[in-house]
């Protein structure tokens, strides 16, 4: 194209619109054919075109830029553009491309089309598709470079935006831990997110094209109970599925519909709920355990209003669980009982832990003893948020204990009776000896007297009668001693010499010891601090220990047979008594269990002698124990507090 020729084209341009109707069609077409090359029209076309274009000479100087191109390149008017260097419209890289590749192509091949950004005079980068070609001027000699520029800024921005949103979407879909796939109605996966790939250890792309049942269930055919069957029928569905690796999934399926409401495929979202499921099961187990526990369990807020009670807790008090929710813990106590609870609470404020037995009231007003344990319930940060109480009804237990205490007391009573019975048999012999002597003496006297005193020497009579009187006194003393044991007596505390008790016990045990051929030895210090206690009870302890020793030695025929009583003062105002024998001793098991009630190595023993003896000694603030470190036999020791 040559330089615009304003006048010629202007004229024709003027005539055309009006002439369209008036000129006959054939003529008009002929005329218009001539007009194909009307410079005026071309000029107007160039001027009005929204397409940007221009041309330059082969030196690279701009010959013309149309207004659209000027606007694009920030040039005020086409006049300003004339003579500018083509290179000034390119940034360095693009210029290099232009000179190195584009222009040589244009010169050799006549044209080049491609994307090559421009730079405006203001320095703006303009993404553009350029269509560059060679033209010849009027005289067929001069060649020009024409450039038609398509500004693709908008398109590029749109593309960029699209790309970004796509990236964003896949980023979102790939970031989520849920497995998301899109599958068609033939179970074939069309798209999968990163989690889907990861769930089977593959890249997401590797899943595409495969059947979902192959991927997750390792099956050759669709699953019998495919949760998406309903989806196929058009509803969203949620279901759980256990895959072949043992994981549990929550599956959510949603149909994807086309414009005509036809189902194109399904979006399947799978959430791995294995852990949630497990913790749900744990929680369920925990809550069943709490609910079904025989122990009462309650949770209250910090002010004591009940948030939860299990069945046992409610039932202990005669309520249904729902009846007491929201009520204060004090509903389970009478005001007097509550006072005790509050006091204990105050005492336990520091630790937040409280354990004790309290009276509880039932709905019907009856009461029971509850072993209560309270502790603070804390949140993860350790802040107290409530109180957990556990409760056991120990009424029966306490009643049983009381009964067994009574039983023990009764047994102790009967045991002391049996102790007395055993002692009595020893004492009977003691009494029989003098009585028998007296009887024999009296009979002898009678016989001598019935023979008219024949051979009866008065002196002999006197000697024998004196002996008989002595024997009567001896019997009396024994009986007196026995009475002290038999008498139903209150404990009588006094300060006494433990050596006296040992001597007395030695006397009482002497008869049996003689029968069992056991030597009784007393190894007592010259003086010992007095002890405080009940003399008779302590004598009973000594006798019990001594009798055990005699019985232990009873079956042991060989060697020494000796029972030794010792007493000594110990540190801390304590007097220690030892009862030693030369019997077979105790087996380790017997030594360990010796003090257990009803444990006995004797065939006829009740097994409570030592247990009672220990109780007696402990009531005297002393200790009774088996001393195992002796070479032979058994030694039992006990201590008593010395009197001030």
């Amino acid at each position, binding site marked *: 194209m040559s330089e615009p020729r304003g006048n010629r084209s202007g004229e024709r341009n003027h005539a055309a619109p009006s002439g369209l109707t008036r000129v006959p069609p054939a003529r008009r077409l002929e005329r218009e054919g001539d007009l194909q090359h009307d410079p005026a029209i071309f000029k107007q076309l160039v001027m009005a075109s929204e397409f940007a274009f221009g041309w330059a000479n082969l030196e690279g100087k701009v010959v013309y830029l149309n207004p659209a191109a000027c606007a694009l390149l920030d040039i005020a008017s086409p006049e300003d553009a004339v003579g500018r260097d083509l290179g000034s419209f390119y940034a360095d890289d693009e210029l290099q491309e232009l000179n190195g590749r584009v222009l040589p192509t244009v010169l050799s091949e006549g044209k080049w089309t491609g994307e090559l950004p421009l730079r405006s005079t203001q320095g703006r980068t303009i993404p553009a598709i350029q269509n560059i070609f060679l033209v010849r001027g009027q005289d067929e000699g001069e060649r020009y470079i024409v450039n038609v520029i398509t500004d693709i800024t908008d398109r590029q921005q749109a593309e960029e935006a699209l790309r970004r949103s796509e990236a964003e979407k896949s980023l979102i879909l790939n970031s989520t831990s849920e497995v998301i796939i899109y599958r068609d109605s033939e179970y074939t996966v069309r798209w999968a997110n990163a989690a889907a790939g990861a769930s089977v250890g593959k890249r997401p792309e590797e899943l595409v094209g495969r059947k979902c049942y192959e991927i997750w269930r390792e099956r050759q055919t669709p699953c019998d109970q495919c949760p998406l069957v309903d989806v196929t029928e058009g509803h969203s569905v949620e279901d759980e599925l256990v895959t072949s690796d043992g994981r549990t999934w929550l599956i959510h399926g949603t149909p994807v519909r086309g414009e005509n409401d036809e189902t194109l495929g399904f979006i399947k979202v799978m959430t791995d709920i294995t852990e949630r499921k497990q913790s749900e099961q744990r929680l369920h187990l925990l809550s069943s355990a709490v609910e079904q526990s025989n122990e009462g369990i309650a949770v209250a807020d910090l002010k004591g209003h009940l948030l939860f009670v299990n069945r046992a807790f409610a039932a202990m008090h005669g309520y249904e669980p729902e009846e007491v929710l929201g009520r204060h813990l004090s509903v389970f106590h009478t005001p007097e009982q509550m006072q005790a609870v509050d006091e204990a609470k105050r005492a336990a404020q520091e630790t937040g832990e409280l354990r004790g037995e309290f009276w509880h009231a039932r709905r019907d007003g009856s009461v029971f003893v509850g072993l209560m344990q309270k502790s603070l319930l804390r949140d993860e940060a350790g802040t107290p948020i409530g109180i957990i109480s556990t409760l056991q009804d120990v009424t029966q237990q306490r009643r049983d204990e009381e009964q067994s205490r009574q039983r023990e007391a009764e047994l102790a009573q009967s045991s002391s009776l049996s102790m007395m019975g055993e002692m009595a*048999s020893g004492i*009977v*012999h*003691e009494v*029989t*000896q*003098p*009585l*028998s*002597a*007296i*009887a*024999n*003496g009296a*009979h*002898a*006297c009678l*016989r*001598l007297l019935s023979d008219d005193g024949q051979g009866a020497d008065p002196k002999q009579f006197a000697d*024998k009668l004196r*002996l*008989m009187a*002595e*024997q009567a006194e*001896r019997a009396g003393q024994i009986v007196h001693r026995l009475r002290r044991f038999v008498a139903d007596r209150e404990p009588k505390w006094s300060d006494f010499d433990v050596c006296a008790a040992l001597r007395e016990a030695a006397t009482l045990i002497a*008869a049996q010891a*003689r*029968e069992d*051929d056991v*030597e009784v030895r007393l190894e007592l210090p010259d003086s010992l601090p007095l002890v405080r206690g009940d003399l008779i009870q302590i004598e009973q302890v000594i006798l019990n220990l001594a009798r055990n020793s005699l019985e232990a030695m009873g079956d042991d025929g060989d060697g020494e047979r000796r029972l030794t009583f010792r007493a000594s003062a110990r540190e801390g105002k304590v007097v220690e008594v030892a009862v030693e024998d030369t019997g077979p001793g105790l087996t380790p098991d017997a030594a360990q269990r010796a003090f257990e009630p009803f444990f006995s190595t004797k065939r006829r023993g009740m097994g409570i002698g030592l247990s009672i003896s220990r109780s007696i000694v402990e009531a005297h603030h002393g200790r009774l124990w088996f001393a195992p470190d002796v070479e032979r036999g058994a030694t039992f020791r006990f201590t008593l507090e010395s009197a001030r």
Partner: protein
Amino acid sequence: MEREATVFVVDDDEAARVMLQFLFGSVGLRSEGFASAEEFLQQYEPDQPGCLMLDVRMPGMSGLELQKRLACRGSRLPVIVLTGHGDVPMAVRAVRAGAFDFLEKPTNDQVLLDRVQQAIALDRTQRLEQVARDGIIKRLASLTGKEREVLDRVVAGKANREIAAELGVSVKAIEARRANVMSKMEAQSVAGLVRMAIIASEPEDDTPAN
């Protein structure tokens, strides 16, 4: 001359012992007291007749042990055991060991004295029997071997002819030997001879083993 029977009283309780002896003295019975079994064993000679009165409960050697020791020494002295209270197992053991009787203290004096007299009588009988047996055994020892052959067969109830056939000698010879046996054994009849043979064959110590 028969020695006078003595009641040997063994009791560690002096008063009991003295009074028992006093009682025995009042009926003219001779008695001796001992404070322990050991003391008694030291002094007692088996040829001393009488009986033993023993307290079952004694320190040192027990009554049972004493009974055993006496038996070992060939003594068949009857033992009366005294106890302070009825102790059946003890009584059984004492009687098994050969005790004559078992009495509970205090004892009725008449019962006690009766039992003592019976024990002394038993001792006397036993001693007489012992003497008789000793004589029989001595006379048996005086028989010749051939006379002994005849005695055994006579006692077995065989007729002279039978014995002669068995021993391969004449009936006359048997009759002669038989007359010698009768005269040496001081037997008046065959029945007497049989009784002597039985006595001689009895074991010398008839104390049952325990």
